[in-house]
């Protein structure tokens, strides 16, 4: 998915564990290019051995479409994780797509119904915010992502390193789903989709108002509105929108939803009611939001009924099935309208009419003239630039990686993220490997004695602030311990050595050693007011723990030699004193 929309599949290696994130299909290709290139993962090893688990974020085919191919045709027997709604809905969409590709189009190198079933047997369903132990070290946790029913963002953790993968998410709630949310889990890496990173969203209200206006106008003049949809996803959103509008405006024209997937869709929304938004959950007791008063089940015969109507029919890109049938019936009348509510893959009828084609070649060389109005409005639920920044703010990752967008168009966002959050931002292309450096935490035991001693030094420790301590690190076998230097020496049976430096400074002074010593003492006492300068009875001078002695030069009476002596610990002061004395004694010093 790097820098390319469709066919999401990301491989993460974390602390020796290998996790595959999503296994999607590219809807734009009809050959092997539609599947990810799994040879990137490992050249000759078995995928089951190499991968610790596979995680699927949601049921859209560009995230799970290649799963049966991957597990049954390429070969993988390890665990596959996804949320409960995803597990319930995935196989339906996969089967649907398989039917169209194989039965209608007659392709051969494709997975079978049995393969879909076998694949789903390997799936382990997870709940939101449930920590799942994949093995002793690897654990995963799902977070609510909005976007579609059951979509989740996943946190993958091994020890103290973690990665969060967002899949597709939406930071603004809509009519039937809530907004994505994650806690301040501070992962080392956040992998975020950035399809709409360069988009600044128009206000939802304006968008909806325009949509309703168009539908209303068409219906008022007696036309028919066709809205091709995928059974689950935006369809529910638009249904709620129309239902509310019809109710408010007291409209009588019938709205239909194509059968087959309708009951199942409703069933799933009822089953997974906790995955919908607050409002739906609250009002569910009084009234099921997905039981519509104005929207009825569609029958093929209704398409020929006179008069206005609105029909939601599958599939969404007008590439086959019922929606295409209805389209052919209604295309010739300019009073009618078709509204495409989402992205259409190249090659589909949906894509053709959106590009402006008004004469389509159907099977059997028949030409269909399209006189009905063609509209396109995208209600997609992806995060825009603002949403991405919001998520980063919530999770506080140390690094960010963007997928799903175009390289050139993400440079500005990359800088924006780097500037605002002071984290590194990466944008790899397909096949590219990005390495993120982490600072793993290594737990170390500290001896009680050392702890007591160190905390006694300095100000009272603050429970919320880190405190600097000094000790010796002992690494033995697999244990790490922090002990005092004395104890370390004892344990290792080493003797402690002291380092002492002595430096000779020559100064010109014809007087006796004793007087020179006094001069030095007075001089230092005058300069080093913050230090303890002592003159000992034997004539030597101490500055803190540094010893200075004046001796006569063996050959030259006029020169005295100052011996400056200090231990290794007093290096700094010792050097300072030496350079000070090298400057000589001032003339007037008594």
């Amino acid at each position, binding site marked *: 998915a790097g820098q390319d929309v469709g066919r999401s599949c990301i491989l993460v290696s974390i602390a020796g564990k290998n996790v595959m994130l999503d296994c999607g299909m590219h809807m734009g290709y009809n050959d092997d290019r539609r599947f990810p290139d799994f040879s990137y993962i490992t050249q000759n090893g078995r995928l089951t051995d190499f991968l610790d688990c596979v995680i699927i974020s949601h049921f859209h085919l560009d995230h799970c479409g290649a799963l049966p191919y991957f597990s049954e045709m390429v070969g993988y027997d390890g665990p596959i994780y996804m949320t409960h709604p995803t597990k319930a809905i995935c196989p339906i969409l996969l089967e649907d797509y398989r039917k169209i590709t194989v039965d209608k189009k007659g392709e051969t190198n494709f997975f079978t119904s049995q393969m879909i079933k076998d694949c789903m047997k390997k799936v382990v369903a997870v709940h939101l915010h449930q920590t799942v132990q994949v093995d002793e070290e690897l654990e995963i946790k799902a977070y609510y992502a909005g976007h579609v029913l059951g979509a989740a963002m996943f946190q993958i953790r091994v020890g103290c390193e973690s990665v969060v993968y967002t899949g597709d998410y939406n930071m603004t709630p809509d009519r039937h789903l809530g907004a994505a949310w994650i806690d301040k889990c501070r992962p080392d890496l956040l992998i975020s989709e950035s399809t*709409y990173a*360069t*988009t*600044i*969203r*128009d*206000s939802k209200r*304006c*968008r909806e108002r*325009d*949509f309703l206006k*168009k539908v209303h106008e068409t219906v008022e003049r007696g036309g028919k509105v066709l809205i091709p949809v995928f059974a689950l996803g935006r369809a529910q959103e638009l249904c709620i929108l129309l239902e509310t509008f019809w109710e408010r405006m007291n409209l009588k024209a019938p709205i239909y939803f194509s059968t087959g997937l309708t009951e199942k869709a409703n069933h799933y929304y009822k089953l997974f009611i906790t995955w919908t938004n607050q409002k739906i959950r609250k009002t569910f007791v009084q009234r099921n939001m997905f039981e519509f008063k104005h929207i009825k089940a569609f029958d093929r015969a209704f398409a020929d009924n006179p008069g206005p109507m609105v029909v939601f029919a599958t599939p969404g890109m007008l590439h086959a099935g019922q929606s295409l049938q209805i389209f052919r019936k209604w295309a010739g009348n300019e009073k009618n309208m078709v*509204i495409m509510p989402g992205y259409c893959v190249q090659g589909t009828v949906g894509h053709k009419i*959106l590009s402006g084609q008004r004469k389509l070649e159907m099977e059997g060389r028949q030409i269909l003239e399209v006189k009905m*109005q063609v*509209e*396109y*409005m*995208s209600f997609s639920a992806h995060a*825009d*630039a603002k949403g991405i920044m919001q998520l980063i703010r919530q999770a506080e990752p140390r690094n960010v990686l963007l997928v799903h967008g175009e390289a*050139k*168009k*993400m*440079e*500005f966002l990359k*800088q*924006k993220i780097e*500037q*605002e959050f002071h984290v590194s931002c990466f944008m790899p292309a397909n096949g590219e490997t990005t390495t993120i450096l982490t600072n793993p935490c290594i737990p170390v035991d500290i001896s009680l004695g050392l702890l007591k001693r160190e905390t006694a030094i300095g100000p009272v420790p603050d429970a919320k602030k880190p405190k600097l301590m000094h000790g010796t690190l002992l690494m033995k076998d697999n244990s790490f311990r922090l002990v005092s230097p004395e104890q370390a020496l004892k344990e290792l049976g080493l003797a402690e050595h002291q380092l002492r430096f002595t430096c000779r400074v020559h100064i010109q002074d014809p007087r006796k050693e004793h007087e020179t010593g006094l001069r030095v003492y007075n001089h230092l006492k005058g300069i080093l007011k913050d230090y303890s300068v002592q003159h000992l009875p034997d004539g030597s001078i101490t500055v803190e723990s540094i010893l200075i002695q004046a001796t006569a030069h063996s050959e030259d009476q006029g020169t005295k030699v100052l011996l400056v002596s200090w231990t290794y610990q007093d290096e700094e002061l010792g050097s300072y004193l030496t350079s000070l004395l090298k400057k000589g004694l001032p003339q007037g010093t008594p």
Partner: protein
Amino acid sequence: VCVAGYGQSDGNEILQLIPPPRLLTEETQGLCPERDFKVECGGFSERPVYSLRYVPDTSLLVTSGPPDSSLQVWQVSAEDSDVIKPVSTIATENGTGQSWAKIATISARAPWVLHGSRLDRVQITEVESRKNVYTAASRGSEELSGLAFLDCNTLLLCCATGRLCLADIRQPQSLVEATSVPLAPCSERWCMGTRHGPQGLEPSSQPVARLSSRGLLTLTDLRKTSEFLALARARVPSPGSGAEFLCISWAPALEGYLAISGFDGTVHVYDTQSWDSSGREAEPIFVHKGHVFGGAGGSRDPPLVTVHMWHLQKPRTLLSAASDGSLHVWDWVQPCGKC
């Protein structure tokens, strides 16, 4: 469309946005594939951006803003990146108490920027070489509220006091005072709007509109500055903070229409063809109130429209931006006979 932030702290963004297709094309389409604006490229400015102009026929853009009157030059479109990069700074001598420079650009003989924060600091600088090409003769040191190229030789300067001055760059010593303020000056602040007429017409034949912070509107013909073409009053609240966002502009595609903003969260559109010189209150053709209702939190200050402009081709379409970060693109429907 280019938008920029003017917040106090650094890290203001400049964004070049591509409007959704329906706003780019001539015909009014129905629903459009994308209704969203796309960020084509973006940049970061350390100082708040108070004024921004594209330099025609180049990929450069010039901005200005406090704390001084220097200008920043930016490079917009590069092949391989979507970042707006700072290219150079056009420094100006900093007198005391200078505010930010007002700017206007033209690319007749070369890419030039006309700029200045005060009447005695007006100059034209060649953008790429940063050489000074022209300096206006000094006729006072009032603060400027706007300046414009009437054509490639003629400049019009508007002071915050309402005074208008014309200059011909071929005659550097002369600065012609165009007109004086209508009423006794009483701490009103003025700004102006000029219009480019159809090609070939003498630039000064287009009336200059001026707006005061009390809502007074004047139209002046530059060839006959001793009297007003029209005088009217707009019904507006007194602007709160210093009236620095007053803005008045002529519609490029509708004869006699102008729009004003900067008093509150609304934009007013007037048809000046019905005005006379009486100074009566004028009735707006339309008032855009969208910014007032757009906002999220109710406790915040009501948004103030910071700038507006007309769509170059679509006759009744305007764009307006407000202090809450909203950008609106709107039009109005001409009322027909029945109500």
